[in-house]
């Protein structure tokens, strides 16, 4: 097993762990705002680590750039989704 493969195994496993943590958080956390916190961890770190781990396996430069593009787009989407969902929650329940 080459060093690149070891890197892939470690990073993808770590990514899968964050997805697991995100799902458990989404199911177990007590209210919507804490669940949102769990969700964004899975979005950012989970997919980020999976993409990082897949980079050594990418087919050429364009393949690697597309992988990074997917991650950047999901970062942007996930950050926006988290912000607008939090805004909606804040509108409904004004702080005490």
């Amino acid at each position, binding site marked *: 097993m080459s060093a690149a493969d070891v890197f892939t195994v470690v990073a993808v496993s770590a*990514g899968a762990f964050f*997805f697991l943590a995100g799902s458990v958080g989404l*199911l177990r956390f007590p209210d*919507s705002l804490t669940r949102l916190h769990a969700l964004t961890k899975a979005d950012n770190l989970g997919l980020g680590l999976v993409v990082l781990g897949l980079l050594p396996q990418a087919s050429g430069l364009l393949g690697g750039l597309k992988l990074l593009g*997917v991650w950047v787009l999901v970062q942007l*989407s996930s950050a926006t989704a988290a912000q607008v969902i939090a805004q909606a929650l804040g509108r409904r329940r004004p702080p005490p």
Partner: protein
Amino acid sequence: MTDFLLAAAGLILLTVAVGLARILRGPENVDRTMAAQLLGTGGIATLLLVAAATGVRGAEDVALGLALLAAFASVAFVNSAAPRQDDDP
């Protein structure tokens, strides 16, 4: 290596699928939207892993398409949940 990538894909799909129980349980629509958001990201990760393992051509483009649209369900939900005061002239 192939088997490891596929196993990781299966594991991620399984965990986000378990997260789908939030759609069932709710209790509020915002929680359901979050479950869909998590499935979107997990689906993209699964797709990338499966594509790397099976070498299917063009799967990165599908992942790019899904990544572009990842926030759409949440934005549509928040948009239609927002109060309509701005619609008054």
